[in-house]
């Protein structure tokens, strides 16, 4: 919209033909230097004037243009290509009429009038200039001449064309958002593209022209490349078809588990790359070979059985003394000709595994949260949501569809009944009693399982000291933990039936309880393990002495004369400590492996065999097995997701002491992707109550974050406050594991870096830094709260306004047009901008309405904001 007032007598001049075609623009000078016959302009002036009287200021221009459009059409009637455009425009108008929704029509009209206004502005300038040059009788008119008048015409034209090109580009970019049929879109697109193509090269002048054309070409190439890259990326996403198939059979909730599994696989692949690329491969390639030093050799006592499968299966023997575990690594500062600092790399990789996981989880949580911010308070629309959004369009399986029909009907009936009897509650005392009883029982179960694990771990420490122990006794811990994980959740579910909760709330409780169970088990296990570690640490001194003495005696034995140096003691014979780090690593690997096995066997027995039994025994059974008691199993989403999350927790905890664990996990996820996909498709039935997944996504992510944090704690504790073993691992000989960092700084960096580091590590600096961070968090938090409040207020206003009949897209476009004017984007500035924007929008709304509707004005005065 032009910011300056338009002189009366120029009104007719300044309305251009909205249908100016490409060729017109090129020959713009010619076309418009010819004065348009006056006889044509007179009626338009009158019409415009009469129109203006009726209308208020704001919509004045729009109306004028509509009035003058007809005349302009006449004025340029002779042009052939104009006529073509014409037809299109009329075609569009007709289409508008045919289109039922008034929204689209208004949108388009507004767009068109916008364009007209812009062109009007440009042409107005041009024509005014021409007048000054050629038509002397207008020279006395109060022209609004400004500096731009002195510029050359070509420059102005350039600006105009540029603007139009930009506009066309915008059309190209947004055309897919228009609810038009493809034919029309295609036509508009082709036209816009032809225009852009034609004029892009013409822009820029002199030397700049070539550069501009080049820039445009590169821009186009870049866009094409980006699109190709996007296509490539979507092609690279694995298992897309598998998941889609499941989605169509079971609805989006079951598919969400598989999408989660795939995401987890991606994360683990990155962790795997990190650990293998920076720790294991350098060690294998450049480190000392197997058998060169004691820590890399199987001790003499174990040598005979080191290759037995039963030993290897327990991750003892040769596997224990391999690069898969902590103990294998040497404490040499640099290895190989690359002078690779392995201990440093080991430490940094261990830290960055956690860093990367934390970043990824938080980022995906944030993006999930961002998607759901628009929802606002959904309570007001329970019925409408059920009505308009409850169908899952992905369902392609008639059976699932039937279930969905049933569940929608139930939910309709439920909500009607809820509405009718929301305040009726029967026998509240009995319900309360049952709920308390159920919680009591479940707490008993949790305590019992915790104690059982503690007991078993203690017993296993006894067993580990004994010699001939049976297979069961060696694997007791893992078996008991897996059994608990298998049988407790159904038990909880049975108990939860007492509580009589709504299924949705019931599911949350169930998830919380299983989570508590797993967590309790894991932490009991950890505590017991920690006991073991402390025990081993206390024995370490004694073993260290023995080692020293052995070596000392060996080399100083009297039977060797001084001249011949004695061959060094064979590494397998050197007595050594128990290396608690490797023990911890092995525990985690065994736990993971047994968990994998239990999961797979459960699926095989519980789902597949049951399905086979039901399917084939149904022919010769006395009741209907498929519809009756055993029936087919449903896919247990929450249990599977929780299992995955806890498995990941064990990986995070164990990967520092067993670098190979991530590799095992990658294999596990890969196989379970295929295996579970097959099991679901072959032997599960869709849920009785099909529910949608989108809401619980962040809930799972939140659990994952919690587990990540909880698994960070023990690892951080062992790194920061336990002494590493003296004869195994990359940190042996140091007091603490993190000592590797000061050491590297001292030896490999110039001294001032060390000094700076010392200053930074000073508590006098750390405490203020933490305080500052806390303050920053407090500040940002309060700012975001304020913004949220402002947001709610704004939304209320918009709601109230939309009640008066302004469609929301109009408001949105105002917001959009405003935000385009903002060129600086800092978080602080953003807050101010939001507030400014709200003022701006409300003022615009008020303007709009005051000019249109008198009754609205009274309502608007209700807003203290505007008054």
């Amino acid at each position, binding site marked *: 919209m032009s910011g300056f007032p338009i002189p009366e007598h120029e009104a007719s001049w300044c309305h251009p033909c909205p249908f100016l075609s490409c060729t017109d623009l090129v020959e713009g000078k010619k076309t418009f230097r010819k004065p348009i016959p006056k006889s044509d302009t007179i009626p338009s002036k009158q019409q415009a004037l009469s129109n203006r009287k009726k209308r208020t200021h704001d919509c004045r221009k729009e109306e004028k243009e509509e009035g003058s459009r007809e005349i302009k059409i006449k004025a340029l009637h002779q042009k052939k290509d104009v006529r073509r455009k014409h037809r299109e425009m009329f075609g569009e108008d007709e289409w508008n009429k045919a289109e039922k929704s008034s929204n689209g029509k208004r949108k388009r009209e507004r767009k068109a009038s916008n364009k007209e206004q812009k062109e009007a502005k440009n042409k107005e300038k041009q024509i005014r200039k021409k007048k000054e040059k050629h038509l002397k009788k207008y020279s006395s008119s109060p022209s609004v001449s400004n500096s731009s008048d002195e510029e050359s015409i070509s420059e102005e034209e350039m600006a105009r064309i540029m603007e139009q090109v930009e506009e066309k580009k915008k059309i190209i970019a947004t055309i897919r958002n228009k609810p038009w049929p493809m034919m029309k879109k295609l036509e508009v697109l082709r036209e816009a593209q032809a225009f852009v193509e034609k004029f892009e090269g013409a822009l820029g002048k002199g030397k700049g022209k070539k550069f501009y054309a080049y820039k445009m070409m590169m821009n186009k190439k870049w866009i094409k490349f980006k*699109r190709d890259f996007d296509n490539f990326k979507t092609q690279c996403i694995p298992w897309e078809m598998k998941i889609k198939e499941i989605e169509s059979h079971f609805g989006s909730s079951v598919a969400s588990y598989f999408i989660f599994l795939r995401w987890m696989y991606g994360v683990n692949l990155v962790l795997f790359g990190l650990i293998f690329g920076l720790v294991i491969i350098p060690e294998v390639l450049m480190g000392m070979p197997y058998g060169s030093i004691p820590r890399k050799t199987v001790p003499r006592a174990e040598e005979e059985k080191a290759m037995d499968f039963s030993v290897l299966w327990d991750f003892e023997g040769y596997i224990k003394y391999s690069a898969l575990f902590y103990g294998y690594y040497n404490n040499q500062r640099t290895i190989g000709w690359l002078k690779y600092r392995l201990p440093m790399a080991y430490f940094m990789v261990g830290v960055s595994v956690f860093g990367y996981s934390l970043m990824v989880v938080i980022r995906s949580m944030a993006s999930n949260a961002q998607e759901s911010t628009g929802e606002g308070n959904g309570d007001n629309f329970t019925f409408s949501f059920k009505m*308009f959004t409850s169908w899952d369009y992905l369902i392609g399986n008639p059976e699932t569809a039937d279930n969905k029909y049933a569940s929608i009907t139930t939910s309709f009936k439920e909500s009607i009944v809820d509405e009718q009897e929301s305040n009726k509650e029967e026998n509240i005392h009995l319900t309360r009693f049952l709920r308390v009883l159920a919680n009591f029982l479940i707490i008993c179960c949790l305590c019992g399982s915790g104690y059982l694990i503690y007991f078993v771990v203690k017993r296993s420490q006894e067993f580990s000291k004994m010699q001939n122990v049976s297979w069961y006794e060696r694997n007791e811990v893992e078996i008991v933990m897996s059994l608990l994980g298998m049988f407790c959740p159904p038990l909880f579910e049975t108990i939860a039936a007492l509580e009589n909760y709504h299924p949705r709330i019931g599911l949350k409780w169930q998830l919380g309880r299983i989570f508590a169970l797993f967590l309790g088990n894991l932490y009991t296990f950890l505590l017991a393990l920690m006991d073991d570690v402390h025990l081993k640490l206390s024995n370490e001194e004694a073993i260290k002495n023995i080692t020293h003495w052995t070596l000392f005696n060996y080399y100083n034995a009297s039977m060797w004369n001084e001249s011949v140096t004695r061959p060094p003691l064979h590494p397998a014979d050197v007595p050594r400590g128990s290396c608690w780090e490797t023990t911890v690593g092995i525990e985690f690997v065994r736990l993971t492996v047994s968990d994998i096995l239990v999961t797979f066997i459960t699926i095989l027995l519980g789902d597949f065999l049951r399905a086979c039994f039901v399917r084939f025994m149904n022919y010769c059974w006395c009741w209907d097995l498929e519809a009756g008691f055993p029936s087919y199993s449903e896919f247990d989403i929450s249990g599977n997701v929780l299992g995955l999350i806890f498995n990941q927790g064990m990986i995070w905890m164990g990967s520092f002491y067993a670098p190979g664990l991530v590799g095992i996990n990658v294999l596990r996820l890969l196989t379970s992707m295929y295996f579970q996909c097959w099991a679901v498709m072959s032997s599960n039935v869709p849920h009785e109550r099909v529910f949608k997944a989108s809401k619980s996504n962040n809930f799972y992510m939140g659990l994952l974050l919690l587990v990540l944090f909880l698994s960070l704690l023990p690892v951080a504790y062992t790194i920061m406050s336990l002494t590493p073993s003296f004869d195994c691992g990359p940190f042996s000989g140091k007091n603490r594991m993190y000592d590797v960092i000061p050491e590297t700084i001292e030896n490999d960096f110039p001294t001032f870096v060390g000094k700076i580091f010392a200053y930074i590590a000073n508590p006098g600096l750390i405490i203020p830094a933490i305080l500052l961070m806390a303050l920053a968090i407090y500040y940002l938090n309060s700012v975001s709260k304020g913004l949220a409040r402002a947001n709610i207020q704004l939304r209320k206003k918009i709601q109230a306004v939309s009640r008066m009949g302004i469609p*929301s897209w109009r408001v949105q476009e105002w917001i959009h047009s405003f935000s385009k004017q903002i060129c600086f984007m800092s978080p602080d500035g953003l807050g101010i901008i939001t507030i400014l924007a709200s003022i701006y929008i409300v003022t615009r709304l008020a303007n709009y309405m005051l000019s249109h509707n008198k009754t609205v004005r009274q309502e608007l005065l209700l807003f203290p904001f505007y008054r």
Partner: protein
Amino acid sequence: MGSSTSQLSKELLSEYQELTFLTKQEILLAHKTFIELLPPESQNVVDSLTAQVSRVPTEKVLTLPELKANPFKDRICRVFSTAPEKDSLSFEDFLDLLSVFSDAATPDIKSHYAFRIFDFDDDGTLNKEDLKQLVNRLTGTEEDTQLSPSEMNQLIQNILEESDIDRDGTINLSEFQHVISRSPDFTSSFKIVL
């Protein structure tokens, strides 16, 4: 036979990518699926693109597994059809359909088409009859899942109370979009993937 002929020209492909929310693979897959729906004599690229020659009648489209179980399948085809009798889909209509139901489509365009799908009598607003039909389709065709008349009335009453902001007894597009924009899981469920 489908795979060998489902090669669209490069320009057309890039235009379709510009105009829809689909990726190249999805467009090619859509084309392949579409060609397989055509009668055998017109299964070639040129014919499949000219809207006049090859339109797949609605009954044929409804046999697609993606649409088979959908209670609104006939409405979907009707809304997206550009044929005068609204009984057949050209390839471009088919692409439009998939684009609107794709993952990347904006909530605005999704809700726009959802409104047109639910507007059974094509009069531009959702009135009580439309809502009744909508409920009937959502609750399935079997006797035991249908709602009783009193329940139905109650339900429609409640819906109008919630969504009909200007109290004219019908829900218009902007009211509909207002409701839908608040729904957390509309965009994730208003999806059809080939």
